[in-house]
């Protein structure tokens, strides 16, 4: 199996912003909840039962063809910062990272598949693809799931489907989610109707990332809430259809910004570039919001030589655990703000700012 440093060293393909509709859709993720018969769920089991299950199941997962050369770690042997790095990469859930004895995660070489053992369910299988590609993400976990099914006695009920610790996951046990970057809709103040419309169809929308109190970085996650009564392909098709609608709204908003609000847009992008390029102290919140504007500027060609993958990687690198991993020690929040500014300045060094724009009609 591979070492942690080797796993982390190379960015995964999905971190580089190059998938269908990557200018708006960051990632597509699908996770499946699975459990074994005859074992209490992790939340209600004794420690020795969790360890017993882990001992029996972990080798099975490690031996899957897709996982064979991957990374596998028992949580008792994983430092807090390393765990947090995996959380920031979406390879393990926050909830799982908070646990220790009897828990492990197995991650494939490409950081596209992860299998959490003894999460809320015995297994949480997750696949990630860049851009809008839930189908691709589902194919990843579907394959692993079928292989695990051949070796392990899954808990399944003819009527209720895959049995899960929480009834909200019954049936397919599948949660499909898409991370969207929607700065256009936010700038035009059109985000709320979109959120409402999506919610009406029974999907959950949340603004997220980071620790702040608002939709940081204009990032939103949309996922299904129902898992029972619909087959996996139906659920995925429905979400993709909704997402395509949201993409169109965001595209329209961006076109409108270019057309009707060029000055405001250029101002936002220009300020974002200037601060990110020259600041020496950057809070998480400020950095995320400014990087969002810079990404928008890059996507709209207001900044011409800036690669989206550089920004998407930076988005990961500036998160607390990644900063501390780089520094090889714990950093206080103030130290992190300095380290964040430093890495941001260095990454943006080769990027030219937005060109001086011709004087806009509104000034004349």
């Amino acid at each position: 199996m591979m070492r942690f440093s080797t796993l982390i060293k190379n960015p995964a393909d999905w971190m580089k912003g190059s998938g269908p509709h990557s200018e708006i859709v960051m990632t597509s993720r699908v996770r499946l909840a699975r459990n074994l018969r005859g074992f209490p769920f992790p939340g209600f089991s004794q420690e020795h039962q969790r360890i017993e299950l882990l001992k029996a199941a972990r080798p099975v997962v490690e031996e899957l063809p897709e996982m064979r050369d991957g990374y596998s770690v028992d949580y008792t042997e994983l430092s807090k910062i390393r765990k947090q790095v995996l959380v920031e990469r979406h390879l393990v859930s926050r909830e799982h990272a908070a646990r220790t004895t009897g828990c492990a995660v197995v991650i494939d070489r490409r950081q596209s598949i992860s299998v959490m053992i003894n999460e809320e369910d015995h297994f949480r299988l997750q696949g990630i693809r860049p851009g809008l590609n839930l189908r691709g993400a589902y194919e990843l976990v579907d394959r692993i799931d079928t292989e695990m099914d051949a070796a392990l006695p899954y808990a399944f009920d003819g009527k209720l489907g895959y049995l899960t610790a929480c009834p909200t996951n019954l049936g397919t046990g599948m949660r499909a989610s898409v991370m969207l970057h929607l700065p256009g809709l936010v700038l035009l103040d059109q985000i709320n109707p979109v959120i409402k419309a999506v919610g009406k169809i029974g999907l959950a929308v949340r603004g997220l990332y980071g620790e702040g109190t608002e939709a940081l970085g204009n990032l939103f996650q949309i996922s299904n809430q129902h898992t029972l009564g619909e087959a996996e392909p139906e659920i995925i098709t429905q979400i993709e259809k909704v997402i395509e609608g949201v993409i169109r709204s965001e595209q329209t908003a961006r076109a409108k910004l270019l057309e009707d609000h060029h000055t405001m847009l250029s101002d936002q992008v220009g300020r974002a570039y200037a601060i990110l390029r020259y600041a020496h102290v950057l809070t998480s919140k400020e950095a995320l919001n400014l990087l969002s504007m810079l990404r928008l500027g890059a996507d709209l060609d207001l900044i011409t030589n800036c690669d989206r993958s550089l920004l998407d990687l930076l988005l990961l690198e500036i998160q607390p655990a990644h900063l501390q991993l780089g520094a090889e020690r714990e950093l206080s929040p103030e130290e992190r703000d300095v380290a964040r500014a430093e890495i941001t300045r260095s990454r943006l060094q080769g990027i030219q700012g937005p060109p001086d724009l011709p004087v806009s009609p509104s000034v004349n």
Partner: protein
Amino acid sequence: MKCDVCEAEASVFLTQIINGQMTTVNLCEGCSKSKGVTEETGFGLAEAFVGAAPRAVETSPDLACPSCGFTAAQLKKIGRMGCPECYDTFREGIEGLLRGMHKGTRHVGKRPSAIITAAPSPKPRRSSVPAPAPAPGMTSTITTPAITLKEETPAPMPPDINKLRAELDLAVKEERYEDAATIKAEIDRQTKDTAAK
């Protein structure tokens, strides 16, 4: 959009269809964390149980899963099951709940390979399905369902809007989001009615 709990800017928007009505609960990041609304579990959660099933559970809080000993009282408290076999014990008690939570109450979609090959019985029971050879150290338990949980019936909503608002506050404070959503839907409906008049 403001957080329904603390008035800060909301960043977690949870939407559910309850009794055919769309309701949204908006929470700020801080409140969503402190209320245990996680990225994974979304809205259904423990609170759904606390809010929707107390009457059903109260009928026999001592009802326990023969396989793991998990009781109806615990189910009410944590909103999750103790083991897969618990679903046999508490099956009927949660059916009404599942209707509000999901698109249907019958699974469609992928099935384990051992189940695809088995002839489906008209009313399938998990325990009637032949088990694949258990992995080392694993036991599979056959249980007979012992169900007495009552189907829940929707409680009539009190008409007074101020009372509803107070109830909403309380529900959110006590983290009963399912309740909160139901109450909010009623308030929205009444407000709309009033506006229409």
